């Protein structure tokens, strides 16, 4: 029988009650007494010199409080990049200033050119329309290859070129790598695009800055996945404020998918403007603004080559990627195409020689940064597509080819710097073959063909490095922050518990799953435990939620803090029962003395901690509150195998996903229902990328898909009922819960399966199509079939 409490149980998500009944408290629900509103005048051209800005007419408009331009922020720091990548020659990445408001030059459509603070949002917008700009047009740099070409216009005049860095990873001996290819029996080459995406969380970004003249303290409410990181970046790098004077609160947040990790100009603006205006300043993004101001994701163009020997063993892999940075470096931007991507190129396979080459490029487009999976989907897509192509070229079974090359011994040190601690790729593939009913495919294909449809089956594996991250390792790789996390467990006198966690929940269900762990450790009901998150004024510290790290890193900190609580509580219990603390056992919320019938309840002990009348005060402090910081020893390595089955309408090119099966190994699982939900959501986004989503720019740097009229989000009828299995569990060897993280797997593991399935379908119809770039829209599939 499934458990109904604690680790491994699937209680319904307690936070959903408030989300589904309109009782959530999102940033836009917050209104501060006397607040003013800011409207950002955003660039509608991609590249221009700002000759002058005339705000005089606007300033006279009703309700206007103050108008800001780039000049007002000349003395303020720029938005920092949190990761410094060293290039193949040992030089640092080129890092341009990233101003809060454009200073002299517009570099992308959507960049802030001026900000109007007024009594109402409408007045602010009215006044913004009265601002007169005198712009000098410059040619837009959009295409990455062209941006690197001789004589290209520069996005940043003060940099040497549009190249941010030219990076090599893995085996950097070009001759040795070439030799491996020269001696190969077969080489498969594939050129592909990993399409640019807009994250589009349901809740657009919002920021409210407040300043108290009385205490000289600032408060920023913002839609963030990591309020402590925002406070650190904004205080230390942008505004130069003492951290203890700044509180950052991220209340209920309606999804982030990476796009709410980063420190954005609007946050610093509202904080700064609150003092300058003497009033709280609020900004609520429209959906239209979100398209041109939230960091985008992906946008890689890659050539990948796979070498195989005569027995179909992978012998070498080489990639050349151009990765778009957009106009400025967003917080994690430079880490995504480098360390979050290159380190994953081994995938699940024992390829001995791997060389990854990445050039990151500035263009006149919105900055690009982490989006669900961040670098790992890009790696997985290339690898799993080229393997599929190789299988087809060699006439090999795609599953057998993968199995043959699986890593099977752990720990395994890859040629791209990671040490996989554990995994069982054969087990997940076995499970997948069963769940996906591979055996029944031929009959299903026949049934589709009888209807005039082509049916295809596609499979892929994935591995990801989650639980980001060991601070010393990422520090060596260029991270400018530690990536530990923290938790404080506060036990109240009556035995209820508040856990203050550095992770932030914005859809992940932490408010349900985190208490399950603490309740399980103590043996009390989950309802006695709550978590507190998203407020630097309440939570000691934390690095936030991204990279599938919350339970693996912050959850581990919570376990460590709870262990300290239990150790102290046992001492109190020992005192009450006049026993030695070594003999105290805690089970089901009762402390007992081994081998006796003595017991005291959890609540007796917690009350004693706060009412210490009978208490060992000489040895033990009263109270029951502990904090732990946890820095992981390694990444965690969730892995799995996914299968997609599609039907293609040969008349229209329309692809429909008929089945999608996932066999994941997430190690130990706290709440299986929440894990299912995380995988479902990830699959939806992966399928969205594969079939629908596309942030397309024209040559002038205008975003063509700048609204839901043209940017196709996946809808319920675009995705099938999923078969999701996570019964293969090789627990993580280095964190206390044995957990690996599950938040990004679906988005990482699904695009190649979808594309592989479509190619399989077209091939079954006699079409010699070996690749189609995502999204596989009906028009593109039809064009490929008829090209």
């Amino acid at each position, binding site marked *: 029988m499934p458990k109904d409490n604690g680790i491994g149980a699937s209680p319904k998500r307690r936070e959903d009650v408030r989300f589904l009944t309109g009782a959530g408290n999102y940033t836009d629900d917050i209104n501060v007494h006397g607040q003013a509103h800011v409207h950002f005048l955003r660039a509608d051209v991609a590249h221009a010199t700002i000759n002058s800005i005339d705000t005089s007419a606007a300033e006279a408009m009703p309700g206007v409080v103050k108008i800001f331009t780039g000049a007002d922020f000349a003395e303020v720091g720029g938005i920092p990049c949190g990761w410094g990548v060293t290039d193949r020659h040992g030089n640092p990445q080129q890092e341009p200033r990233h101003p809060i408001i454009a200073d002299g030059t517009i570099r992308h459509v959507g960049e802030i050119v001026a900000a109007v603070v007024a009594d109402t949002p409408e007045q602010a917008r009215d006044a913004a329309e009265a601002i007169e700009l005198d712009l000098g047009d410059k040619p837009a740099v959009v295409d990455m290859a062209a941006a690197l070409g001789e004589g290209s216009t520069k996005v940043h005049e003060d940099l040497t070129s549009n190249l941010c860095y030219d990076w090599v990873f893995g085996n950097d001996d070009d001759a040795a790598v070439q030799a491996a290819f020269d001696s190969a029996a077969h080489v498969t080459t594939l050129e592909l695009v990993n399409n640019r995406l807009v994250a589009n969380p349901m809740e657009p970004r919002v920021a409210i800055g407040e300043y108290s003249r009385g205490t000289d303290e600032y408060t920023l409410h913002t839609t963030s996945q990591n309020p402590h990181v925002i406070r650190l970046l904004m205080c230390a790098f942008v505004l130069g404020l003492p951290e203890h004077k700044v509180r950052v609160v991220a209340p209920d947040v309606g999804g982030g998918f990476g796009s709410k990790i980063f420190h954005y100009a609007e946050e610093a603006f509202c904080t700064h403007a609150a003092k300058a205006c003497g009033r709280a300043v609020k900004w609520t993004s429209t959906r239209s603004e979100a398209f041109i101001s939230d960091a985008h994701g992906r946008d890689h163009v890659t050539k990948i080559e796979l070498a195989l020997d005569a027995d179909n063993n992978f012998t070498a892999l080489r990639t050349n990627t151009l990765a778009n940075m957009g106009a400025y470096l967003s917080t994690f931007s430079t880490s995504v195409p480098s360390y979050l991507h290159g380190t994953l190129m081994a995938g699940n396979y024992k390829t001995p020689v791997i060389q990854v080459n990445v050039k990151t490029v500035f263009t006149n487009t919105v900055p690009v940064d982490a989006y669900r999976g961040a670098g790992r989907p890009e790696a997985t897509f290339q690898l799993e597509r080229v393997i599929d192509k190789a299988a087809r070229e060699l006439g090999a079974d795609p599953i057998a080819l993968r199995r043959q090359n699986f890593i099977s011994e752990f720990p395994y040190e890859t040629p791209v710097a990671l040490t996989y601690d554990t995994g069982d790729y054969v087990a997940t593939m076995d499970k997948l073959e069963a769940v996906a009913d591979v055996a029944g495919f031929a009959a299903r294909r026949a049934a589709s063909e009888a209807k005039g449809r082509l049916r295809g089956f596609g499979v892929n594996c994935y591995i990801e490095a989650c639980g980001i991250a060991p601070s010393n390792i990422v520090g060596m790789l260029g991270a400018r922050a530690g990536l530990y996390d923290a938790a404080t467990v506060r036990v109240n006198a009556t035995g209820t518990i508040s856990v203050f966690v550095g992770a932030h929940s914005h859809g992940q269900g932490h408010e349900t799953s985190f208490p399950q762990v603490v309740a399980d450790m103590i043996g009390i009901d989950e309802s006695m435990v709550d978590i507190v998150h998203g407020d630097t004024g309440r939570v000691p510290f934390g690095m936030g939620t991204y990279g599938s790290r919350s339970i693996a890193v912050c959850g581990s900190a919570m376990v460590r803090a709870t262990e300290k609580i239990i150790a102290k509580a046992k001492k109190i219990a020992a005192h009450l029962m006049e026993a030695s603390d070594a003999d105290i056992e805690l089970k089901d919320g009762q402390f007992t003395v081994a081998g006796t019938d003595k017991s005291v309840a959890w609540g007796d002990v917690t009350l004693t901690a706060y009412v210490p009348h009978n208490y060992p005060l000489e040895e033990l402090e009263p109270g029951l509150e502990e904090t732990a910081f946890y820095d992981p020893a390694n990444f965690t390595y969730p892995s799995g195998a996914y299968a997609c089955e599609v039907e293609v309408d040969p008349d*229209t090119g329309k692809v429909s996903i008929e089945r999608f099966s996932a066999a994941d190994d997430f190690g130990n699982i706290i709440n299986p229902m929440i894990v299912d939900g995380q995988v479902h959501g990830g699959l939806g986004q992966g399928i969205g990328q594969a079939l629908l989503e596309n942030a397309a720019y024209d040559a002038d740097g205008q975003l063509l898909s700048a609204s839901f*009229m043209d940017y196709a989000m996946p809808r319920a009828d675009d995705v099938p009922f999923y078969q999701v299995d996570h019964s293969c569990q090789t627990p993580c060897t280095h964190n206390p819960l044995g957990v690996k993280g599950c938040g990004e797997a679906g988005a990482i593991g699904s695009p190649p399966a979808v594309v592989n399935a479509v190619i399989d379908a077209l091939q079954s119809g006699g079409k010699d199509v070996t690749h189609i770039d995502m999204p596989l829209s009906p028009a593109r599939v039809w064009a490929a079939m008829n090209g």
Partner: protein
Amino acid sequence: MYEFEFEKPSTIAEAVAALADEDAQALGGGQTLIPTLKQRLAMPSKLVSLAGIAEMKGVSIADGVLTMGGGATHAEVAADACAPLAALAANIGDPAVRNRGTLGGSLANNDPAADYPAAMLALKSTIVTNAREIAGDDFFQGLFETALEEGEIITSVRCEIPEAANYQKFAQPASRFALAGVFVAKYADGVRVAVTGASEEGVFRWSEAEAALSANFAPDALAGISVDAGSMIADLHGSKEYRAHLVAVLAKRAVAALA
């Protein structure tokens, strides 16, 4: 939005009078107009809501004629119109759009990717306004252009019920408006084929297909017939050639559905 005045008359006459003011604009279900206002792409001085006018409501069928109020919502058309048009209406947008958006609003807007215009050309429609009757064939005049005069209100629409009809829509993946849509209607005196979503000139009747199908009402009759790709729309979601191809596929499917 910019600020505007708001009126909600209860008769057509009052509405016409209210619309006489300069820069006054009719408001149907607001499903196109309200987003336009939110983006500040329109600046009417006054909105005159047609939602309170009882004489513009209702969908009825009598003597082979379908009569629909200009204020009938898509949901009402989906519930009460003849089957092929009801099916078309039931597939416009989502429930919220269908419960708000109106037939008159959609026709007045004449979005090149809207569904109703194809039905109007195929179903021998007459667009009735406060001032006159306009044959459906004369009503649509290119992208977002119609025969309506300033301040003229579509009060009702009449269609001749066909022997058989079918609408095939291929949805644009993002908006789910028609990337191409083909309405085929069979009458005793011939077949009408209208195409939406595809052409740079807006909705049109495909006369070659009409002639072929009038002679032989079978999918095969369309073999070898195609629309000119040169006049088709090309955008992010499909090339000219793709749209021209879709038109042929959808027309065959519509006929096949009736054969």
